[in-house]
């Protein structure tokens, strides 16, 4: 597939008033979001904030009406196959097939993305190399540690050269060392390929460290948006304006989130509008 000119003008992901309802529950309630090409965007929020549902709408797993979600300009309602060819997706569960070897797991995704046979083995090896799994590739995935399974899933997603990598809670349940390992591999691959990364997490420290921009989600909507440092400085300023000590340490992203989730402010409230207005000018890594 060529990266045609039409694609270049579009953001990687655009959600416009995205709403998704399970029975009575509004899991996503009017989500507006744009993720620029090449950035690492973190969708943050507590369990039940609607992150996973939003991701499932973007990945075409959940049907949404036309016009709500675009991936590189392709509508997920009408142009599913085109959207899927641009995506690499790592779901929340450890989803490698334990009955297959690492190499076979990756080869399956090479096949279903139509990698021609003459190129398949080489591509699979490159994907395994990119996540440092060449040595373990011949072993069954059932013998892998959690961190290795995550890296294997990353290789499965990378084998089709996606332009948008979507990771749903990639480090959930991993020990700190494995978490760092997963992130370093994501970063290395991103640096080498320039792909866009959309990641959900509820670890604020990870988001602060690894995301170019974050959106804090609560109750099915984005409540604050910007670079981690913008959000933290914004909160620091508000606290000083409210009479806090001038020499207080910079609030953490977790403080920002506590304020957003705890205060029940909606997006009409003053302080956040500034943050939201920065989203268009936010730093983009290209």
């Amino acid at each position, binding site marked *: *597939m060529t990266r045609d000119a039409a694609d270049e003008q579009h953001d990687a992901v655009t959600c416009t008033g995205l709403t998704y309802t399970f029975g009575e529950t509004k899991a996503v309630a009017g989500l507006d979001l744009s993720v620029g090409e090449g950035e690492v965007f973190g969708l943050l929020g507590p369990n039940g904030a609607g992150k996973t549902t939003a991701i499932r709408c973007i*990945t*075409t*797993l*959940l049907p949404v009406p036309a016009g709500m979600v675009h991936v590189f300009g392709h509508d997920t309602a009408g142009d599913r*196959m085109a959207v*899927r*060819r*641009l*995506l690499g*997706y*790592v*779901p*929340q*569960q*450890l*989803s490698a*097939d334990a*009955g*297959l*070897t690492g190499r076979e797991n990756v*080869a*399956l*995704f*090479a096949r*279903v*993305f*139509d*990698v*021609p046979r003459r*190129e398949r083995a*080489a*591509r699979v090896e*490159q*994907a395994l*190399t*990119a996540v*440092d799994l060449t040595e373990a590739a011949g*072993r069954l995935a059932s013998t*892998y*540690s959690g*961190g*290795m399974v995550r890296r294997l899933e990353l290789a499965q997603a990378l*084998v*089709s*050269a996606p*332009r948008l990598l979507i990771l749903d809670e990639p480090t959930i349940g991993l*020990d700190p060392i*494995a978490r*760092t*390992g*997963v992130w*370093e*591999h994501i*970063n*290395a*691959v991103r*640096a*080498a*390929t320039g792909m866009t990364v959309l990641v959900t997490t509820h670890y604020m420290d990870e988001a602060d460290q690894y995301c170019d921009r974050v959106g804090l989600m609560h109750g099915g909507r984005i409540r604050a948006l910007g670079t981690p440092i913008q959000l933290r400085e914004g909160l620091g300023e508000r606290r000083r304006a409210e009479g806090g000590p001038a020499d207080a340490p910079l609030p953490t992203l977790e403080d920002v989130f506590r304020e957003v989730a705890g205060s029940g402010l909606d997006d009409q409230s003053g302080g956040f509008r500034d943050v939201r207005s920065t989203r268009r000018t936010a730093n983009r890594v290209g």
Partner: protein
Amino acid sequence: MSEAPAAPRTVSADRLDPDGINLLLSPPEPRAGWRLLPARVVAMCAVELQKLSHDRTELYTRAVQPALWLLIFGQTFTRIKAIPTPGIPYIDYLAPGIIAQSAMFIAIFYGIQIIWERDAGILNKLLVTPTPRSALITGKAFAAGVKSLIQAVVVIVIAAILGVSLTWNPLKLLGVGAVVILGSAFFSCLSMTIAGIVLSRDRLMGFGQAITMPLFFGSNALYPVSVMPGWLQVVSKVNPLSYEVDALRGLLLGTPAHLALDFGVLAVAAALGIAAASSLLGRLAR
């Protein structure tokens, strides 16, 4: 967990040699529309064969039941001559029925695998590849067919050892393979359809148990249709297993069979099964 937690050897962006992952920079060309379906079928069958090559336990344990049917039921009823089988020993008559039965037993529980894949996130990941739902189900159906076929080979060998006089005509054996695959494609789709309705492994187990015996006893696998009471003859007439057994008998033993009708019914049943299971796959993805 045979490798120490993965990460201490950190990978940095500059260590990931861009030449080493050059293939991961360009997405594969989409396959032409008509080649997509066979490619997905091959991909799913390859996975099934790879899994079987790593763990043959199921192949051996599943051989026990058909062996007992042939050895105990077959030999006993051959001796007491309770079931009229024109011109051939009862065990010969029984062998194709047991081949069909053991193939059906594998296929009828195939839906459990798809629910397991759903729970493990594997199904979602496959649904985010450029694979239409019908192609995924067709692939799974034929993968179940391949698994059943290997089982059928085992039963044929057992039958041959027990002295059943089977054909070794390669063309007829090819036909046997086609019949087993088509039959299992239908029963696996029946199973995946129920999976799409009940959505849980336990309930599917219950359904599987509840329908296998009626399908088996309500067919011509154990006795000719002519000795059945009228109502059971009706059941047998609408039961695809009867057509599978009829074709297998015709091909393996050379008894009079309605091969064209059998193949026709099995092909239509498989196609309807694929349509039904594909339309319910969305419920599993939700």
